[in-house]
């Protein structure tokens, strides 16, 4: 007998008393007023991200100023967001890891943001690129449109496509492993900048 059959057999035998599936109550908060951008900004800043509220035509200049050097961008990033000094990752095959790691920053869009938790979600769409490009540089600059911001986690889950690789980001990389002191910045980008576009 294969281990698969063995395990499934054991599990079925364990459930011989026929326990009914517990109810899955959905009476927790699931509907929300429209997202409050000020709440999002407050939560992002609380988690040590830097937030700027700018107009769309200023993205390239502001990103260049934050990075102060070469910026990695995904192939699908809107062309008018691109600063002059960029390395374009064309996906498969894309930039070598050491070129990505050597850049001053990475600039991407996002899929969804959650105001209540200060979370940005990337789904590897063409304007966000492969997961590796947002991981190796020390500075991550995210451009966020107001329409992408939802109030709560349930709304974000409903908007996302589980078939895509998803990265949920709430502030920069952090650890509390040494005497429970919070240290911002371990392996991921140590600096997270959000450019929130004016509607």
């Amino acid at each position, binding site marked *: 007998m294969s*281990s*698969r059959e*063995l*395990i*499934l057999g*054991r*599990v079925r035998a*364990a*459930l*011989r*008393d*026929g*326990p*009914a*599936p*517990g109810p*899955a109550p959905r009476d*927790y908060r699931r509907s929300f007023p429209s997202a409050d951008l000020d709440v999002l900004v407050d*939560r992002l800043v609380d988690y040590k991200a830097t937030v700027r509220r700018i107009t769309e035509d200023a993205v390239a200049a502001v990103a260049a100023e934050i990075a102060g050097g070469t910026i990695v961008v995904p192939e699908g990033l809107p062309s008018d967001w691109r600063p002059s000094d960029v390395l374009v990752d064309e996906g*498969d095959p*894309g930039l070598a*890891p050491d070129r990505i*790691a050597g850049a001053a920053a990475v600039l991407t869009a996002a899929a969804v943001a*959650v105001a209540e*938790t*200060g*979370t940005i979600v990337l789904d*590897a769409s063409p304007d966000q690129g*492969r*997961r*590796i490009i947002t*991981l190796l540089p020390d500075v991550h600059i995210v451009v966020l449109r107001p329409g992408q911001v939802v109030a709560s*986690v*349930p709304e974000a*889950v*409903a908007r996302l496509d*589980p*078939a*895509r*690789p*998803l*990265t*949920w*980001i*709430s*502030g920069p*990389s*952090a*650890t*509390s*492993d*040494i*005497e*429970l*002191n919070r*240290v911002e*910045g*371990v*392996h*991921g980008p140590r600096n997270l900048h959000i450019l929130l576009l004016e509607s």
Partner: protein
Amino acid sequence: MSRLPELLEQLEARVTERGGVVHWAADANEANAIVTDLVKQTGSERVIKVKSMATQEIALNEALEAAGIQPIETDLAELIVQLGEDKPSHILVPAIHRNRSEIREIFLKAMPGVDPALTDDPPVLAAAARKYLRETFLSTKVAISGANFGIAETGTLAVVESEGNGRMCLTLPETLITVMGIEKIVPAWQDLEVFLQLLPRASTGERMNPYTTMWTGVTPGDGPQNFHLVLLDNGRSAVLADETGRQALHCIRCSACLNVCPVYERTGGHAYGSVYPGPIGAVLSPQLTGVEDNASLPFASSLCGACFDACPVKIDIPAILVHLRNQAPHSRAERAAMRAAAYTMARPRLYARAQRAAKLARIAGRRGRGLPLGWTDARDLPEIPQQTFRDWWASR
């Protein structure tokens, strides 16, 4: 849990459709053999690891080392534990028993290429780990992870973390091997909206943890191009068969029960002598490995119930502890003494006589001398009062 067989089959089908390979491991030995073989097939002599309770439970690192493969822990606390040749003491912060100067000394002694001028400032120590591990992340072709959740409906797996070592391991290598206990399954994508709110809040008190990665099989051109999922039983089906104990399988490993437990606070995690420490460990370990192997754990509690109050998935830990105490082996002398006590206490005149005898014994000898059970090896017998309650009542 009541739909576990169909959900496991559904998860297997979805992961396979998306280019992953699913393996089934009935016990720790089989899981270790599967993972070791998979690593050997890649030709890699080194693997990077994301912190995982399941791989600790099956002692995967020891099995890999025995096969000549070097496992490198990438979570900061796990790295401290590994470099210090030590054991974890907490589910969430495994190196909580080490202070900053000890960590500095461990790094100076065991971390290759470390700056000898290292200070014990936590940001400096974290930066040393970043520098040391960065090269390893980029040059290792195989990663091993656990999973916080596996979604049957979509075949999606989720890893919840803080440092970014999880993202590194789940994104950079060519091959990813995930070892997941069969109880980590949730039925629907929508269920994540509940658990993504429960886990970080119960675990670290954050509104949301810094990083969560979710992936479904293989994504061409992005991340590992070979994905293996090892579904681990290792005693879980036996836990499921116990009507009282099965609720322990709902545990999401948040460690809230450790943080409120007065016993854990005094003893620390090592005293439990099992992979899962604290109140949840006291109910999970004996059930997974047999009560005989962890006979003292169900008693390592005052049954105060703080764990039950703190548990976000409402596991009635005190009830399971009492249930397991009934199953734990008791010595013949202990059982005889308890039976005699029960007989005496049920008969008032006999009880009164026993109290008088106890008073005489107090005059006769040193406290506790002659008790057969070794009970006084580590504690004092309470002093028997001069006057019994009945005597006091009669003379009032």
